[in-house]
């Protein structure tokens, strides 16, 4: 069972505190939403959880082992991250790019087999890019590039998925499609996801747990029902919030 655990983690960037003494346990079957205003440090925190940067103090444990002691290749087989920006510089095909997700699973001289190719084709279909397999990545639109990056992550098959604003550049239909895919990973495959989001209603619809960053190192973590309410959101975004009851549950709007 793959878990990601933070123990009294202090994270900061350029002297600005992001999280102070963060204790967190991400276990299979949990879908975390990471909420906070612009520039509060959501990306920095995710990078720290991915082992890309080291915290000021405290430890991140992946499968009960400190992240700094695990080789990058072993981390990549367990943990994957969708970065906030996706820019493709060189002309590669969509299929080739999706196949890069197999990289940590293959030895130096090993080539991708039919099995790997099938996984890539499935992932491409899962993000509605079927028919694009031989297209060149430099010609994709922002939203298409975003979906392709997510497909590569699916091909990587990590037990822990870190997603930095996965719905960026996506239209409403594809926002829901991507979040559905993440939900499938969490529920059907017993993986665990943490997703930085700006749309609190997507968090309300999909997430089981919420981590809120308030700035100055203050944070709150817990079950979605305990945290996602009008009062907390007003405090989080320092802006009036209205809540409305819909057939699918409570949703939130900016108030006056």
């Amino acid at each position, binding site marked *: 069972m793959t878990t990601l655990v933070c123990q009294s983690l202090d994270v900061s960037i350029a002297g600005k505190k992001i999280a102070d003494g963060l204790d967190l346990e991400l276990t299979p079957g949990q879908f975390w939403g990471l909420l906070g205003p612009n520039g509060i440090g959501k990306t920095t925190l995710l990078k720290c959880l991915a082992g890309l940067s080291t915290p000021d103090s405290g430890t991140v444990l992946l499968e009960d082992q400190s992240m700094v002691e695990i080789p990058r*290749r072993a981390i990549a087989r367990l943990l994957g991250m969708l970065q906030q920006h996706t820019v493709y510089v*060189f002309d590669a095909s969509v299929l080739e*790019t999706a196949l890069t997700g197999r*990289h940590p699973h293959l030895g130096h001289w090993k*080539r991708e087999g039919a099995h790997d190719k099938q996984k890539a084709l499935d992932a491409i279909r899962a993000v509605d890019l079927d028919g694009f397999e031989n297209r060149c990545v*430099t010609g994709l639109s922002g939203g298409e590039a975003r979906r392709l990056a997510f497909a590569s992550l699916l091909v990587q098959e990590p037990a822990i998925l870190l997603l930095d604003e996965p719905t960026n550049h996506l239209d409403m239909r594809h926002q829901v499609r991507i979040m559905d895919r993440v939900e499938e990973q969490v529920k059907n495959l017993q993986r665990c996801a943490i997703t930085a989001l700006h749309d609190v209603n997507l968090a309300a619809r999909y997430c089981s747990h919420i981590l809120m960053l308030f700035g100055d190192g203050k944070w709150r973590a817990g079950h979605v029902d305990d945290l996602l309410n009008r009062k907390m959101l007003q405090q989080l975004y320092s802006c009036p919030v209205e809540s409305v009851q819909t057939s699918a549950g409570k949703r939130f709007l900016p108030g006056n």
Partner: protein
Amino acid sequence: MIPTTLRRSLLILLLIMSVGSVFLVSAIGSVSLGWGEWLKAMTDSSSQHGELVWRLRLPRALAAWAVGSMLAMSGCLMQVLLRNPLADPYVLGVSGGAAFASLLGMVFGVAVIYLPWLALLGALVSILLVFSLARGTGPWSGTRLLLTGVVTASGWAALISLILSLSPDNSLRGMLFWLMGDLSYATVPGWALGVLAASLILIMGLARSLNVLAMGETTARLLGEPTRRLLWLVYLLASMLTATAVSIAGSVGFVGLIVPHLMRLVVGSDHRILIPAATLFGGLFLVLSDTLARTVLSPQQLPVGVITALLGVPLFLLLLNRARLKGV
């Protein structure tokens, strides 16, 4: 881009053309040989033209091949490191650094066997200088890269001019030709072929890692690459290949730009195909360029660097314009 299934056939075709070119161009030159004469010379090195073919033309063609393939490989590596298809050892001053260091060694009478080490040092210093200043993403990265490279290159050019202006007149012509990239007196020492073969094997083992690195350093780390180690290895390989090429033929420009670019158009950006294709085509390209250089104004011989630059400069400008249109 050609279909994946044809890529292997293309490599075989390039291999045949590459090897064939080295032998065939030995028939061409100021003394042109007919097929019969050429065959006789090839089979019997003591025949009338045997000496010409075996002692002069074949070693020169082999040197051209080795230099071309090493520069093409080095170009591919630098383009990955910088995530920019405009990177080239000559344009970014890496060849310049190697040339300056060797020239300085020659002036101070350093033994010939140590000159390649000086070239390596010069290449490493330039590559680290350019890369530490010009790496990164940001909207200015392309401009910053080219500016840093061009300034580094002109810095080396100034130091080289200083040495030249202090050198005696009788050695000037030889030095100038060498600096422009010249294969007239070039031969390939065994160690250079060793460097070429070893680098190719090593790079082929890293080819999929290079694909990942081309997507950015963070992406590469997330996909399991220990990027710091990988980057150092690639820096070192790119410098070593450039330095070896420069030790053989001086600074031949733009091969590292032209060859990978053309091969990318044909085979795409998967380094498992791109690297061998660029290596083979780089060799072929320089063999043909050098043949042009020694025949176009025959019996007058041109430095091959003149030919490659005349082909490379328009292509570079074209690429730059395309990058501008794309907003890269």
